[in-house]
């Protein structure tokens, strides 16, 4: 991949004596959607965390946009996550005391955008994800599907270049799950963001351009298997 945006090479990560990653490979280009699949405990989330600079791998290199992520300081990686990456997790990710709109605006505010402007832009994204009417509600007062859309809006509000989604539809029924996926993919495509999508569900993975399977900490690129 000549023009890969984010890539990981020969990644190793061990927790205690549990090897979570054992030589995993990954690469993604701008605007590409790559699904990571594999059995439970195979190291999918660990791979995602490494790629996003949340966890530092024991060995291996991660390159993002020409920079070596593994060589960056914790502060540098945090700054990068604030400015370039968006995140959607399975559940429990909204700050319960903030309203939905404040939740969506939060990443912008962490990037020092003024509150008014942050919330205006947040509201735009909530409209795109069809949840603008929930702006004033708190996460405790909305449904799981609605919460996931808020989370997607929050992930996209900074116009990230990569969105990391770890089982974003894991807690949703198929209809809601697919709706969230369509909105996520549609919105990401419109901003040319790449998506790293960890999922168990084939129907969700089917929204990707390409999939890799992780088994026992090793990755396998299915495009090449075919």
């Amino acid at each position, binding site marked *: 991949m000549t023009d890969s945006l984010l890539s990981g090479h020969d990644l190793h990560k061990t927790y205690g004596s549990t090897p979570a990653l054992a030589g995993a490979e990954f690469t993604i280009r701008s605007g590409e959607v790559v699904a990571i699949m594999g059995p439970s405990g195979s190291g999918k989330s660990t791979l995602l965390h490494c790629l996003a600079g949340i966890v530092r791998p024991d060995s291996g290199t991660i390159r993002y946009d020409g920079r070596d992520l593994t060589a960056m300081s914790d502060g540098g990686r945090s700054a990068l996550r604030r400015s370039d990456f968006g995140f959607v997790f399975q559940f429990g990710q909204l700050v319960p005391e903030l309203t939905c709109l404040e939740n969506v605006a939060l990443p912008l505010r962490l990037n020092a955008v003024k509150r008014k402007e942050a919330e205006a832009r947040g509201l735009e994204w909530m409209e795109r994800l069809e949840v603008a009417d929930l702006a004033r509600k708190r996460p405790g007062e909305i449904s799981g599907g609605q919460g996931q859309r808020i989370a997607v809006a929050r992930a996209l509000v900074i116009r990230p270049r990569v969105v990391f989604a770890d089982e974003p539809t894991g807690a949703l029924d198929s209809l809601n799950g697919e709706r969230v996926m369509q909105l996520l993919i549609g919105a990401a495509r419109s901003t040319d963001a790449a998506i790293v999508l960890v999922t168990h569900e084939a129907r969700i993975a089917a929204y990707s351009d390409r999939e890799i399977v992780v088994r026992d900490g090793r990755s396998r690129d*299915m495009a090449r298997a075919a």
Partner: protein
Amino acid sequence: MRIVLVMSIGHTLLGLLESGPCHGYDLKRSFDERFGRDRALAYGQVYSTMSRLLKNGLVEIDGLESGGGPERKRYAITDAGVTDVEQWLGRPETPEPYLQSTLYTKVVLALLTGRDAADILDTQRAEHLTMMRELTRRKIDGDLGDRLICDHALFHLEADLRWLELTAARLGELTLEIRK
């Protein structure tokens, strides 16, 4: 199911032969043992298939026992036969319902002949996902009717895929069972 079986019986028998020459009767027995859960293979079908394979040069007669009925013929696989099996195993099936029997057969044969069964499953998996992607694309662009039809197919394919995953996860177990 019948159709599937008929389509793959030649390859299956070829695959069984790969582990060593054997008599038509033994071939039927080992086929029945491994794949003939619902219905045993008829002798007639074994012989007609074997003669087709003979004609195509994929097997050859390895020897005749005295008393010489057709069941006394001993078959061996030719190089062309091995290649044929190889290609068949490596070729993903067109995703469709009731695929498991064929896939199962392939996996068992791969294990029997020491090939990488995981590879077969992964290949199939990629094929399935490619089709699912295609259906998903059609679904997103299509009207409600298309969507419903596509979803139906998608759910079935997903079920297959789950089976593929499950099988992949159980390959170790299966190997032990088959090799015993």
